[in-house]
C-alpha cells in the first residue's frame, strides 16, 4: 500500500470570542492570518482548503480559497477536521489553526517528514507536543483517514475536544523545534505581543487620543500605550483587535503630533496619535 497523499486544511471557522473580532482577519506584517497559514501550507502541499462554517461561505476573505464547509453537527475544530476527512476520505490532512503566527516552514517540513519516516505507525495522527504542557497540539497535526471513524464515535459519545481524542487514542508526538512555534493568539493582548515579537521591534510608548465614536468604542478619551506597531496603520490594526472599532481604516485619517500624517509614517517614542473618524462639522 502506497503512502497516502496529504492535503492541507486551514481552520478558520472559530468564533474568536476572546479576540472580539474574526481572528482569521488579524494581520501580521500586512497579511491576514488566514492568508499566512494558507500560503505556508501551500508551500508544502498542492491541495489546501479553508475550513469554514456554513454561514461563512460568502465571506470574501474565505471564499477566494477552496473551502471545506462543515458537514457534521457540533462545535469547535473537531467539526472542521471531521468534515475534511469526510469530504476527501482517501487523503491525510495537515490541519493548521490559522491563529499560530509563529509557525514556520521548518515546523511544517518536520511534521511531514516525521509522518513519512514512521509510515502507518502513525495510526491516527502525528502531532506536535505543546511546549507548555507536553500535550498533543491537534491543530498543528496530520490527521490520517483512519481517524475518521473513531473521531465520529468520540463525538457521538459526547466528546468535542480533538486534543483529548489524541490523548486517549495516542498520536505520534513530535518535539517542536522552538518553544514558541505553537503559541496561539486568542486575545488582543496576545496579539500585541505576537506583533511585537514578529516585528522584532522594541515596544515604545505612544499617547493615543480618541474622539467621537471611537472614544465611545474604546471607553476612554486617551491612553498611553506600549506597542510594537511601527506605523499608524499597524497601530490601528492592533487597536481594532483591542477595542473592536467598527470604522475601517479607509474611513479614517490619522494625525501624529497634532498634524495630519501618512499611515505609513514611522512612529517614534512619545508620539501622540489621533485617529480621525469621518468629520461632521458645521
Amino acid at each position: 500500500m502506497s503512502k497516502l497523499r496529504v492535503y492541507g486544511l486551514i481552520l478558520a471557522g472559530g468564533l474568536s470570542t476572546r479576540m472580539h473580532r474574526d481572528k482569521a482577519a488579524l494581520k501580521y506584517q500586512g497579511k491576514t492570518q488566514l492568508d499566512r497559514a494558507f500560503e505556508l501550507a501551500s508551500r508544502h502541499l498542492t491541495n489546501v482548503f479553508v475550513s469554514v462554517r456554513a454561514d461563512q461561505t460568502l465571506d470574501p476573505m474565505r471564499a477566494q480559497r477552496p473551502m471545506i464547509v462543515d458537514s457534521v453537527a457540533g462545535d469547535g475544530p473537531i467539526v472542521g477536521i471531521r468534515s475534511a476527512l469526510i469530504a476527501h476520505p482517501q487523503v491525510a490532512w495537515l490541519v493548521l489553526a490559522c491563529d499560530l503566527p509563529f509557525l514556520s516552514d521548518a515546523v511544517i517540513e518536520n511534521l511531514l517528514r516525521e509522518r513519512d519516516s514512521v509510515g502507518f505507525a502513525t495510526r491516527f495522527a502525528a502531532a506536535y507536543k505543546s511546549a507548555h504542557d507536553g500535550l498533543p497540539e491537534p491543530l498543528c497535526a496530520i490527521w490520517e483517514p483512519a481517524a475518521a471513524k473513531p473521531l465520529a464515535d468520540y463525538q457521538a459519545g459526547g466528546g468535542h475536544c480533538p486534543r483529548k481524542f489524541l490523548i486517549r487514542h495516542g498520536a505520534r508526538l513530535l518535539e517542536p523545534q522552538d518553544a514558541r512555534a505553537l503559541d496561539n493568539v486568542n486575545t488582543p493582548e496576545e496579539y500585541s505581543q505576537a506583533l511585537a515579537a514578529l516585528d522584532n521591534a522594541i515596544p515604545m510608548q505612544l499617547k493615543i487620543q480618541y474622539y467621537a465614536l471611537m472614544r465611545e468604542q474604546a471607553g476612554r478619551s486617551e491612553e498611553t500605550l506600549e506597542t510594537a506597531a511601527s506605523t499608524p496603520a499597524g497601530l490601528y490594526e492592533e487597536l481594532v483587535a483591542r477595542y473592536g472599532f467598527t470604522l475601517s481604516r479607509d474611513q479614517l485619517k490619522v494625525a501624529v503630533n497634532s498634524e495630519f500624517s501618512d499611515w505609513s509614517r514611522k512612529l517614534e517614542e512619545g508620539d501622540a496619535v489621533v485617529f480621525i473618524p469621518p468629520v461632521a462639522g458645521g
Partner: protein
Amino acid sequence: MNFRFTISPIDTESARRELQTLSAGGYVSFEGWVRDLNEGQEVTRLEYEAFQELAVKEGDRIIGEAMRRFPVKHALCIHRVGSLGLSDMAVWVGVSSVHRGEAFDACRFIIDEVKHRVPIWKKEHYRSGDSGWVNCERCAAAPLHSRAAHSPVEDSLVEQSHAEHPHDRIALANPK
C-alpha cells in the same frame, strides 16, 4: 487665529466687529443652525466635539486659502462645541471685502471646506431615544473622506444660501 472654538453661544456681534475695516464695502456671514430633522429622524439635540489642536490649524489653513483665492479683507470662523439645542448656532462664518462678490464666494468656500476637513464631530440625539455620530454610523458604508461636495451633515443645518428660506441670515451690509 481666524478659526476658533467656543463652548458658549457664538457672539456674532463682536465677531462681526472684528471684520470691520474702512476699506470694506460688504460683509457676508453664514450661520449653521441645529435643525429638528435629519434623514427622516426627529433630532432633539446635538453634541459637538473637536480635536481642537489640529482643528484650529486646519481651520486657519482653510481661511488662508480663502484669502488667497478671493480678494477679501478679513475672514473669521467660529465653531461651537458641547451640547446644542434646536435652533442653536453651531457655526458662524464672516467675511468682509471691498465688493460683495468675493465675500459671498469666500464665505461659501470656507463653510464648505470646514465641513469636510476640520476634525469636528457631532452626535445627534433623536426623539426616539436613539443617537448616532453623523457620518460614522448610519453612513459608515461609504468612506466620507473620499466623498465629494455635500455630506448629509449639511441637511441638519439651516442652509443660509437659499434666499427664500425664512431663516435666511446672509447679511450684506452697506452694499455698493
